[in-house]
């Protein structure tokens, strides 16, 4: 039963998409036909750049794989041929910096992780402002439909001065996975506030049975979003308008204390060396009651060959802090190199990559959490969609309350390193206030320097 649906689905969507865009062109041509002709502008046509060739530079990931798999569809639709290169995330970031610095990068379109590359790219003016092309009726597909993009994703893609430097594709809000069996056994409801969260972790922590009340990343660098998830809930921030760090404020210290309590007191032994994979393997074995991390782990958690807790996983929206309820957000998207000589065809590629069909595919293949809201309903309508309904609800609710989980600065990796070490030290018993003050003093000059020139 699932096979025909599976085979037909992308095609059906494509036909609908092509039909819709053809319709849009026809509609656009009717009332304003004379106007268009008068201005010498052609109506939108996917074949406009037929015969051109563009190079795209993607990250090797399920999302990169998925887009590459369907490049043929884009080539057939537009007549533009696509050359693509995919490299692992770390190497992609290094190569991007080196290529852009050379002033003659080998690619036209580039995938970027907003939390690491947005500020770096913006500061160096490496990407093209998409607004002129978006507002050009001959270049923008009417189906682009920006209203369909989740606000969290758009916040990331748009610069403070209103320039749109990329289109967001994937969101990664942080959520709390919880083990329903452990919660039910102690008759505890999923926490709604930070105080309840600490309380639940205390009650569920059971070292003799090898069960931890809470698990999350303790490894330096990787651990920073765990702390910032709390920091945002406490109403704290990263940097004020004058460029001064806010990482030693009372809110920052309180949230660091919460981090310390949850990990050092109710976390597993050795958690200061845990990245997401160690946390995941503990949670998969039913040995942790709560796990705070990005939303992308439903697939392994619901896979009977990997998980002992299939069907028992709860997907909880981040509980509310004393000031607000926030889910720390990470996201990625695609932009066009400012050095590209093929901006038109590249813009067509961006529109295709972020269209509803591709966004729905991303969800169906469990390759990510699409930024388009409509993709969720479309994917759920399909019978081969495996992610639980609760996960989808959690995703949509989290995206609504999402804020960037890291400061949007060029030196973000160094920020994560400096504060990551401070957090690891806290797990091993150091005083949160002292550690944060020291890290803030250490990092302020780095920030000043990296944001100045």
């Amino acid at each position, binding site marked *: 039963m699932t096979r025909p649906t599976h085979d037909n689905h992308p095609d059906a969507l494509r036909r609908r998409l092509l039909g819709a865009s053809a319709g849009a062109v026809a509609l656009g041509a009717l009332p304003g036909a004379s106007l268009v002709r008068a201005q010498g502008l052609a109506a939108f046509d996917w074949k406009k750049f037929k015969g051109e060739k563009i190079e795209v530079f993607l990250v090797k990931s399920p999302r990169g794989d998925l887009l590459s798999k369907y490049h043929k569809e884009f080539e057939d639709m537009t007549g533009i041929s696509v050359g693509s290169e995919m490299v692992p995330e770390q190497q992609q970031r290094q190569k991007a910096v080196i290529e852009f610095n050379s002033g003659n990068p080998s690619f036209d379109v580039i995938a970027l992780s907003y939390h690491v590359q947005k500020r770096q790219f913006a500061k160096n003016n490496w990407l093209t402002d998409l607004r002129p092309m978006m507002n050009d009726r001959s270049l923008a597909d009417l189906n682009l439909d920006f209203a369909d993009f989740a606000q969290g994703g758009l916040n990331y893609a748009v610069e403070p001065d209103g320039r749109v430097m990329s289109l967001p594709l994937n969101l990664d809000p942080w959520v709390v996975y919880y083990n329903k069996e452990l919660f039910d056994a102690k008759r505890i409801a999923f926490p709604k506030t930070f105080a309840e969260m600490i309380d639940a972790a205390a009650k569920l922590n059971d070292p003799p049975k090898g069960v931890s009340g809470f698990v999350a990343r*303790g490894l*330096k660098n990787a651990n920073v979003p765990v702390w910032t998830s709390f920091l945002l809930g406490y109403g704290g921030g990263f940097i004020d308008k004058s460029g001064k760090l806010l990482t030693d404020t009372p809110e920052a210290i309180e949230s660091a204390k919460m981090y310390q309590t949850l990990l050092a007191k109710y976390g*597993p*032994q050795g958690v*200061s060396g*845990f*990245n997401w994979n160690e946390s995941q393997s503990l949670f998969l074995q039913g040995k942790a009651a709560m796990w705070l991390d990005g939303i992308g782990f439903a697939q392994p958690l619901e896979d009977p060959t990997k998980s002992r807790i299939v069907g028992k996983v709860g997907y909880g929206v981040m509980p509310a802090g004393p000031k607000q309820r926030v889910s720390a957000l990470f996201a990625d998207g695609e932009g066009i190199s400012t050095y590209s000589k093929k901006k038109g065809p590249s813009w067509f590629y961006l529109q295709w990559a972020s269209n509803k069909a591709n966004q729905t595919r991303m969800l169906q293949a469990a390759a990510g959490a699409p930024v388009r809201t409509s993709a969720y309903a479309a994917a759920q309508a399909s019978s081969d969609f495996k992610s639980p309904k609760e996960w989808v609800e959690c995703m949509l609710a989290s995206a609504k309350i999402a804020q960037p989980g890291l400061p949007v600065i060029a030196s973000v990796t160094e920020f994560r390193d400096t504060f990551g070490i401070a957090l690891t030290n806290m797990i*091993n018993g150091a005083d949160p206030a002292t550690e944060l003050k020291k890290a803030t003093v250490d990092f302020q000059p780095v920030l000043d320097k990296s944001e100045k020139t």
Partner: protein
Amino acid sequence: MNSSALPTASRPGFLARRRRAYYFFAVPALVVVGAVIIFPWLFTVWMSAFDWRIGSVAHFVGLENYVKLATNKRFLESIVHTFYFTLLAVIFPLILGTAAALIFHREFPLRGVLRGIFTMPMMATPVAIALVWTMMFHPQQGVLNYLLSLVGLPPSLWVYSQSLVIPSLVLVEVWHWTPLVMLIVLGGLAALPTEPYESAKLDGATEWQLFRYITLPLLAPFLIVAAVIRTIDALKAFDTIYVISQGGPGTASETINLYLYLQAFAFYNVGNASAVVVVFFVIILALALVLLHVREKTKWV
């Protein structure tokens, strides 16, 4: 020196011309060495005199990067970690490898097969090894703590503890590289003369005396070679550490290489990273001179 005996002497300038021709043939080698060793090296020294982050304007700062390194606690600690790691990662494979070679040098059934199995770790890819060991080290789910529990020992935190992380990483290194030392020492044992043993036995020497006063001194040059190779490998160790602990917890296992990688490729702090490279180069050079000196001396052990 009696060039008049040569027929070419009748043609003055031939030798000079031939010498010029020799220079021409050396050009490719000089170009390659210049391009891949000398130029990058000089450029690194040059870059180390700048405050330069990729994406920002470079400022000439002279020796400032070096002055800062001298007081940079994290960098100085990374030197200590590097030496601590190297020392352990040289000594243990050396002792265990020599012991293994002495065992495998004797005749016993299935020796060839067992020897082959023993050398297998050496052939595995470091990153794959690192990933497997990471799983084995897991404090709750790992097989190592399960094994400890079978013999009634308390669980260890392995690479997840700041004090145990370097010894645990050395454990991986020992498992990986002991076979290499064994192979080198086996080669040495095979080349040893048999006469000294015969005469020593006639004189009533014990097994220990044979080993201490004949085998060990004769093996010394081979052991030094093994030590040099191990030292070089341990100093440049990066992949296993990066994959298993990423220098953590905190900075507890951050060696110079990891610090360098962060500075250069994560923070794009090229000036500072170049200064680190230069300092590291000087350290390695000093160490190499010490090892060479030791090697000279062992000829008379």
